[in-house]
Structure formats: structure tokens, C-alpha cells
């Protein structure tokens, strides 16, 4: 019995490992991937990156314009994230196993999130461009839909993690459904949720490189312009500005997390 338990456990681990290796092998065959080549390319890649991607004094002239665009981007990113978070909260509460009303609505909510997460940004670009043209709204909506899909999923995880036993206690007092949510689930998971919201805001600023192409606005558009005209010096300046912005948001986010968690 005892041997069988440990043997079985080891066997199971081995089978899982084997399946993972098999899938990996299959993927390597399908894509003709070479790990050695990949590893070997890393130093060379960094060499190329460092020698090509640096801002020059000439490119610094574009800084005011870039900062201007950064501002637009931050507005769109945060706006889309915030609105998405509000919707995502509602859907996550419907979707989470701890708080769901019934399994049908829960499945619907999860399905909706999956749908929105998996419509490619290129698809959004096309559909939205048809109707909204190259406006800030196109960017807003493209970011909104993707953020919504992602945040719903993230919030569901947070709720499941954070609020098991206290939900039970509030239910035992006879508190109505929504009250239980607002008095127990939300206070318990708010810090984690906020942390994800900040993360998505940050991601969205980075996604601005994609969005810029769609909207013709924002820092992503600047990157696209410089990148496509092979002005890597100016493009690197954009990247540096994005990196700094994201680090700043990350810093704020970490500060907030540290204080509230």
C-alpha cells in the first residue's frame, strides 16, 4: 500500500513530464524550432539591440512631441482600463464559483470574457476602423474589449482566492446576495483587483504600440512612424519613454500594493 502510493505518485509525475515533453517535441517539429540556435542568438541579439537602439541628440528633439503623445496614450489606456474594470467586476462576480448566482450565468460570463479576450487586436482594428475610423475611440474600444476580457478572468481568480470563508459567514447572517458581495468579497479582494487594474493599465500603455497603428494617435503611433521609417534612434527614445512610464506605474502599483495588502 505504502509503496504503491509513492510509486503511483512518481508514476503520475513521470507521465505528466512525458506528456509535456511529447507536446514540446511535437511543437518543435511543427515549427522547426532549434533551442541551441535560440540560446546562441541571445548575445547577438543584445549586441544588435544595444548598437542600434539608442537615442541620439537629434532624436531628442522629438521628445516634446513624444511626451505629448504619451499623455494621450495614458489617458486612453487608463480610461479603457477603468471602464473595463467596472464591467469586468460585474462579470467576474457572475462568473466566480464562490459568488455566482447559478452555473448558467456563470458559464455565460466566462464565455463572454473568453470571447472578448480572444478576438485578435487585428480583428478589432479592422472592425472598428470600418466604423470609427482612425480616432481615439478606436483605440479606446480596442483596449477596452481586450482589458475587459482579461480583467474578468483575473477578477474571477482573485475572488475565488480571497473570499471563501467570509462569504460563508455573511451568508449565515442572512445577508442578501449583493450585500455579501460588497461587504465581504469586494473588501477582501479589492487590493488584488486594484493591483490587476494597474497591471492592465500598464499593459495597455505597452499595447499602445499596436493601438497606435489603429488609431493614428498616441505614443504607439509615434513608435510606428519612427520604426517604419527605420529611424531606430527616435524609436528607441519612444521605447525608453514607454519603459520609464511603465516603471513609474509599476512603482506606484507596488507602493499601493504594499500599503493596501
Amino acid at each position: 500500500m505504502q509503496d504503491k502510493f509513492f510509486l503511483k505518485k512518481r508514476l503520475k509525475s513521470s507521465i505528466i513530464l512525458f506528456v509535456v515533453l511529447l507536446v514540446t517535441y511535437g511543437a518543435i517539429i511543427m515549427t522547426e524550432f532549434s533551442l541551441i540556435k535560440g540560446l546562441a542568438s541571445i548575445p547577438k541579439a543584445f549586441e544588435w539591440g544595444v548598437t542600434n537602439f539608442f537615442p541620439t541628440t537629434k532624436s531628442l528633439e522629438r521628445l516634446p512631441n513624444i511626451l505629448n503623445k504619451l499623455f494621450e496614450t495614458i489617458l486612453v489606456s487608463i480610461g479603457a482600463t477603468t471602464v473595463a474594470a467596472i464591467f469586468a467586476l460585474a462579470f467576474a462576480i457572475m462568473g466566480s464559483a464562490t459568488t455566482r448566482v447559478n452555473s448558467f450565468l456563470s458559464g455565460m460570463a466566462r464565455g463572454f470574457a473568453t470571447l472578448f479576450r480572444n478576438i485578435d487586436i487585428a480583428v478589432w482594428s479592422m472592425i472598428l476602423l470600418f466604423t470609427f475610423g482612425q480616432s481615439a475611440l478606436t483605440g479606446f474600444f480596442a483596449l477596452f474589449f481586450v482589458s475587459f476580457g482579461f480583467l474578468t478572468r483575473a477578477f474571477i481568480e482573485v475572488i475565488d482566492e480571497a473570499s471563501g470563508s467570509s462569504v460563508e459567514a455573511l451568508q449565515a447572517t442572512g445577508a442578501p446576495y449583493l450585500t455579501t458581495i460588497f461587504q465581504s468579497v469586494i473588501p477582501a479582494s479589492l487590493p488584488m483587483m486594484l493591483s490587476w487594474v494597474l497591471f492592465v493599465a500598464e499593459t495597455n500603455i505597452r499595447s499602445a504600440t499596436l493601438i497606435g497603428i489603429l488609431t493614428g494617435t498616441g505614443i504607439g503611433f509615434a513608435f510606428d512612424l519612427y520604426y517604419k521609417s527605420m529611424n531606430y534612434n527616435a524609436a528607441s527614445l519612444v521605447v525608453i519613454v514607454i519603459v520609464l512610464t511603465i516603471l513609474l506605474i509599476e512603482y506606484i502599483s507596488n507602493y499601493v500594493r504594499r500599503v493596501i495588502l
Partner: protein
Amino acid sequence: TSTSKESSASSGTTETKSKTETSKPAGPITIVWYPNESGSDLADARDALGEIVTNATGLEVVHRTTTDYNIAIETIASGNADLAFMGPIGYIEANKKNSAVLPMVVPSGQSGTVDDALYHAWLGVKKENAESYKNGSDFSIENIQGKKMSFVSTSSASGFVVPGNSIVGYFSQKEQWKDLIAEDLLEGGSNMFFSEVAYGNSHQGSLVNLLMNRSDIAAFCDSCVNNYIEHVDGEENRPGAVYRIRDDADEPLNGFPGEEFTIISVTPVLNAPFVVNTNNLNADMIEKIIVGFTSDEVANNPSVFVPKDSEFKGLFSKRADERFVRVEDAWFNPLRDLQ
């Protein structure tokens, strides 16, 4: 000449850097394609061209397709690809990055010589608005300032660089715009040259922008939209010419049958070359490839130069004596000077 040299190989396509006569790839020759030519529907067309290379060198060919112009340019410049078919601006960039990248051939014009190995950058406006782009009795770009503009993409020769330069050339004569540079055209705004600037990301896309009224003026090239339009009025390929979208136009222009637009500016652009990274292939082999490309056999290959009534979806069309012709780097100087 000698095929025995093929055995004195270097490994793969990437590491060969010496220019010695003996260096040539033992493995397959890599061709990188621009996004425009990367679609799966053009796979047969790519194979047809790859076959020319195989026939000339006896080496297998690997096609690399990408959706990113920069990646294509950097790939040929860094020697990760041996051959490329790329736009003239892309070639100039690649050559600037690595002077070992040199042109081999371009598809000729109808004459079968390099003289008309050209196509044209057009600025089109909707026919109903055309009158407002007249300066006196002639069409002109005089009135385009402050309008909504659509380009193809910033790296497109006929979709941005060439028309952009002619706009800058025209307006920088004027006192108000004397400091205008091409970069100022990239973005719209109340204090910019254009009120709005859109990008079609393809020539067809730029034309769509015009037809959907997302822009007042659109830049695109004649040969790029040739399949979709028919001539209606005025002298072909001259300012004032009117074209109509064909009723049987393919996507993405199938939604606009019968719509008409007027050309207000025409600027010639050099054809796109096949280029080689001479670090990767030796002179012998390059010569063999060029000979292969410029042969009559290729000129008459209906998969390469596609006859008008053919079903085959190819890269070049055959109307008269089109063929590949040899070009030198200097041929691109006029375009290079624009930048």
C-alpha cells in the same frame, strides 16, 4: 562556370561573411519577401520565382515571408537571407545598412527595357470633389493643404516617399511652408500641413480610405490598383484622368463598384528590384541567377509574367514585352536623392 565550388561550403545562410570567391551556401538559398508578396495566395507565384533560382544554381530555395517591412529589410541587410524582392525604398535602406546588398534585376516596363521600369505614384481625389483641386484649368496639388490625407505607409515608395517629396518640393517654394519637410506630413493636426493623416497599410487600403471618405486625398500606385479599376476619362496616367472601380473588382474594393476618382498628381517611381546580399553568394552564383532571371524563358513563363486572361495569381503581368532586366545600384540614385 564551375559547380564544383558548391562543396566548399559555409554553414547555412547566416554566418558567411567573407567576400571570397569560394564562399557560397551549401544549403538552401533563403529569399525574404515583403508583406505585400507574403500572402498564401501568392505562394505559387513565389515558388515560380524560386524555381528560377533553383534552376540557375541547383540549390534549393527557402521562402521567408513576413508581415513586417523592417524585419524583411533587416533580414537581407544582416545576411540572414540571401535574396529579397523588395520595394525600391526598402532596397535603398538595406543598401545603406549593408553595402553588400545590391540589386540584380527589376521587372521592366512594356518596352522590355530598363527605361520604363517604372510605375506611378498617384494622388487621387473623388471625382465629385475634383473641381476644387484645380489651379486655373489644370489639376494641381495647390489646394491639398489642410485636407484629410491618406498614405499607404511611411516606408512605401509610391505610397509615401515619392508623393511626399513632390508635395514638399512644391510647397517649400512658398514662404509659409518654406521649412516643410517630409516628416511634417506624417501626422495631421490643426497646425500641421494636413488636417488628418490616415494610413491604408496597403495601396488598396489607401484607395479604400478615399472611397469611404475617410480622407479627401489618397496616395497609391497605378500598378497596385490596376486590377481593380478601368479608365473612364481624360488622358491615362496623367493628372485629370478619371478611373472607375470595376464592377467585378476583387476585395477589398468589391464594395465600391462604379465609384469614380480623379488623379490630380502623377509621379514616376522606380520598379521594385530583386536584391542579393553579396556576402552570402559569390559572384559566379549571382551571375547565374541574373542570367536565369533575365532569360527569355522566364520572360515567357506565364507564372512569372502573367498574361492578362490567366487565372494564375502572380506578381507581374504581361501586356507586351515585360521581362526582367539587369540593374545597377546607381539606377536608384534619383530615388535616393529624394530622401
